[in-house]
């Protein structure tokens, strides 16, 4: 059974790791994402140079971003920075999960930030997307 604590600057430990649940990439999820961002590229619904349909390159970013929710209650946060390396396309029908690690936390101009590196991989462990994000913590 998981215990969830409020996310605070003091509760965070540099080096702590997170793992998401595994997500099956369904056509419906890909369709919802493309609606949300208003991108109707034909590769997301039909053939692509990679074989069948693929997901939007940033499709799994929310899975990575929500890694901290697997351990903490997050009252609010603002995204400050985001980096991606798109290594392989996320294909419809894959099962993907993200793993992350807190690599830094710092205070600047009275604001508190956490930095997380992540990788999203398929169920064989092949890295699909690597990245890093910096989030400002908003107190409860």
């Amino acid at each position, binding site marked *: 059974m998981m215990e969830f604590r409020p996310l605070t600057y003091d509760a965070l430990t540099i080096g702590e790791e997170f793992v998401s649940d595994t997500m099956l990439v369904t056509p419906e999820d890909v369709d919802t994402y493309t609606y949300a961002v208003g991108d109707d590229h034909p*590769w997301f619904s039909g053939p692509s140079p*990679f074989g069948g349909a693929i997901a939007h390159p940033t499709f799994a*970013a929310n899975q990575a*971003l929500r890694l901290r929710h697997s351990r903490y209650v997050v009252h609010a946060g603002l*995204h400050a920075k985001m980096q991606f*390396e798109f290594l392989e396309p996320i294909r419809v029908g894959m099962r993907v999960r993200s793993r992350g690690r807190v690599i830094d936390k710092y205070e600047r101009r009275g604001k508190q930030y956490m930095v997380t590196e992540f990788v999203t991989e398929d169920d064989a462990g092949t890295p699909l997307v690597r990245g890093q994000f910096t989030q400002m913590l908003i107190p409860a």
Partner: protein
Amino acid sequence: MALASVPAVGHELPSLDKELTQRHIDAYSGVRTRSIHTDEAWARRKGFRTTLAQGMMSTAYVSEMMTRFFGAGFVRGGTMSMAFVQPVYAGDRLTVRGVVKELRAEGAGTRVVVDVWCENQHGQKTAVGTASGVLR
């Protein structure tokens, strides 16, 4: 449609226009209470004038611009680094722009580095950074 030849430094990528409705934000973030993205009362309580789009929606827009320009050379091998410098609110309109900054030989191809940014309907930049794709 992906470009067949390497663009020159200074080349402007075709821009995109995006209207951020609450419905789009809801679809992106998932509707939750106590969310600055989907709960207006909570967003106000946290000091914002209304709900905010997730910063990552802007990375999706840049990704769209890059994929339409570079095709498979962005989907496999692309990079992006963005900083979110102004909040984007429900109801804002963003324009997504890119200008080729640098060309680097990479294997049998060329990595094209692009300055990218999003600006709102007031002309304020909301997200800035670089992205790259590979042309072979």
